């Protein structure tokens, strides 16, 4: 009887452990199955590098370059906002904050990470966009700049929280060694602690990028939605995610448009996969470097 129960538990947990793998493979297969018919109609590189996205025209154009560029632009803009704030606040919390400040700052930043993206979208649409439109005198506040700003705020907690963890993993003995040699706190931070946490901080930034690339609701609401190659950061854009979200409802199942949206999802999936792999490689190297093993 005990034998049977032990085996039962073993099987239950094995199934649970492999469930994620099954989901992953299932998702990849579905994406491939739905996306591949598109490439009977158009060449892969015409799809990837075409500059026209008119999926409902006759004949339709399925060039996703404007969408890719929109995603890149918005993500880059978000990082310009999120990296300084995220890493800066991590350094502050780690190095300068008093016990009390630390006790409320980190939870607050983590709560920011828990706010649903639609709330950010709402905030961007109703407050940030009109404000920027007035302030800068531009035709619309719903553009790549606003999207970058809001996405940047959303990615900040990820970057801050993981960077702060990386900083706190730096062994205290490194700091002591540096201080004992006559370094001041600032020199110790810049020359020893931050380099030792460097790959952890890089991982944080990469995961922040992953968050920004994949974010859908916010960009759908504030990026403006024009599927045109942007000429400036103040142009309305339509990143890959919001294209899928906006058009999936109207695309006829099995049509080329439908396949094209799946193909976009596939590209998006590959991008985030690469980002995650890079983050994993860097953080593994980092643990080796600090002698923490795997």
């Amino acid at each position: 009887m005990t034998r049977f129960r032990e085996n039962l538990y073993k099987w239950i947990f094995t199934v649970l452990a492999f469930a994620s793998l099954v989901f992953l493979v299932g998702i990849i297969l579905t994406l491939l199955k739905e996306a591949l018919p598109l490439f009977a109609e158009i060449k892969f590189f015409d799809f990837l590098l075409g500059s026209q996205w008119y999926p409902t025209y006759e004949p339709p154009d399925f060039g996703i370059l404007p969408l890719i560029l929109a995603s890149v632009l918005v993500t880059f803009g978000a990082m310009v906002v999120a990296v300084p704030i995220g890493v800066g606040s991590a350094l502050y919390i780690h190095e300068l904050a008093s016990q009390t400040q630390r006790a409320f700052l980190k939870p607050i930043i983590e709560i920011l990470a828990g706010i649903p993206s639609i709330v950010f979208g709402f905030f961007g649409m109703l407050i940030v966009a009109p404000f920027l439109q007035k302030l800068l005198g531009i035709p619309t506040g719903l553009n790549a700049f606003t999207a970058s700003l809001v996405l940047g705020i959303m990615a900040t907690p990820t970057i801050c929280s993981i960077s702060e963890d990386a900083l706190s993993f730096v062994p205290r003995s490194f700091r002591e060694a540096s201080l004992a040699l006559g370094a001041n706190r600032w020199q110790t931070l810049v020359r020893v602690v931050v380099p030792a946490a460097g790959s952890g901080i890089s991982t944080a930034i990469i995961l922040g990028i992953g968050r920004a690339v994949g974010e859908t609701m916010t960009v759908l609401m504030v990026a403006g939605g024009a599927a045109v190659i942007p000429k400036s950061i103040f142009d309305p854009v339509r990143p890959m995610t919001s294209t899928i979200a906006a058009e999936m409802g109207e695309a006829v199942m099995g049509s080329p448009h439908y396949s094209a949206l799946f193909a976009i999802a596939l590209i998006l999936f590959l991008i985030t996969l690469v980002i995650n792999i890079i983050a994993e490689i860097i953080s593994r190297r980092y643990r080796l470097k600090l002698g923490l093993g795997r």
Partner: protein
Amino acid sequence: MDLEVKIRSRNIDFYYGKTQALKKINLDIYSNMVTALIGPSGCGKSTFIRLLNRMNDLIASARVEGNLMIDGVEINDPKTDVVDLRRRVGMVFQKPNPFPKSIYENLAYGLVINGIKDKKFIEMRVRESLEKSALYDEVKDRLHDNALMLSGGQQQRLCIARCLAVEPEIILFDEPCASLDPISTRKIEELILELKKEYTIVIVTHNMQQAARVSDYTAFMYIGELIEFDLTEKIFTVPKEKLTEEYLSGKFG
């Protein structure tokens, strides 16, 4: 031989918050001598040497009273330049703690942070300090390898070399062999005997044989108090205090 007092401790009381860790410590440490601090865990020996380079400043709740002078100058004075003090009083820690940088960068670190930019000079100092710490021959061909690739004993000698590179006057060893094998331990001990010609050395150790082998003077501490301080030979052969004798004969500790 004339003994010159390098470090003078008078009525040092030390507190972690409300807990008193050191009680009225009066101790003279002589120039170019090795002074060992021994005693059971928690007796305050590490706390005491960490006062000498003010590493205890890092602990928010720490408080020190009394006089602690190096070359007759009070080091707990608010006007004391802590950076300069720590350059003069080097420290080697219990666990080897090289930076995750190259061997060369580890050694150059203390110079670079003190604003020295002359590369030739730094190279010379790096070499000198490696030679003094008997590590040069083992690492001369791989100065740019990561220091964490070295063995534990080599890492500890690298830490000693790193400390020598800034030319301190006093070197504090906080149980430097606690994590090392007997052969590495012997090398470190030989090094300490060599170094005392130029430096004043204070070593905290759990290992009584080690204290007997390397030190000229020994201070025995117990629960925050200095019980006895004398020439090492005397402490180990004819201790005055009963507590010292009991500790040395292994009755407790």
